[in-house]
């Protein structure tokens, strides 16, 4: 819990479908904003949030978070982001079908990741 020189450690839990509402994009925007202010930021994609990572979404499909995903490294976001294995499996997705490289995490490891931050945001 130490608040080090690099500010608070943020974990953004992203659980929304990519399009159909502004929430997914706004959540990713918030994460990138925190990172732009030099806060250590981690991303965890859970539940329907894993659809944000699906390869093959047309870039022009509304306000999709797709375009931002490629720029995570520019913002010093801890890469690759975490994705829960069971969330992928329940939706018939594999890591190979995702648009970016991810760290696959088993469900029974999620609680520990949620605890390993200073600020926890479930968006």
């Amino acid at each position, binding site marked *: *819990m130490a608040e080090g020189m690099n500010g608070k450690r943020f974990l953004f839990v992203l659980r929304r479908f990519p399009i159909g509402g502004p929430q997914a994009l706004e959540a990713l925007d918030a994460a990138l904003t925190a990172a732009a202010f030099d806060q250590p930021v981690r991303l965890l994609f859970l539940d329907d949030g894993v659809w944000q990572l699906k390869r093959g979404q047309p870039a022009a499909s509304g306000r999709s978070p797709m375009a931002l995903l490629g720029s995570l490294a520019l913002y010093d976001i801890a890469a690759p982001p975490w994705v829960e294995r069971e969330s992928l499996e329940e939706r018939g997705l594999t890591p190979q079908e995702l648009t970016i490289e991810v760290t696959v995490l088993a469900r029974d490891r999620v609680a520990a990741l949620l605890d390993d931050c200073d600020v926890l945001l*479930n968006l």
Partner: protein
Amino acid sequence: MAVLHIVKHSPDASQALRRCLARVGPSDSVLLIEDAVYAPASDAALRCAGKIYALLPDMAARGLTRNPLQGDVEYVDYAGFVQLVVNHDKVISWN
């Protein structure tokens, strides 16, 4: 180090409770508020790695009482809600 997970939707209206319970750690707690207090009122098994609490004022507002079949559920009033927030490092709301 512990996380307080807050759920406010009934299990029928939303997957939030089920999804939350699957990600609770052993030192974490779950607090059921608003329509989520219907969950312990039913006999469906409520299980997770941590503790489960239900907010009594929200139960009273819905005419619900403590369910003896849900022996693992503990009950708190508003002061207890505050104490839970104080006792955990982080709070996460599941929608």
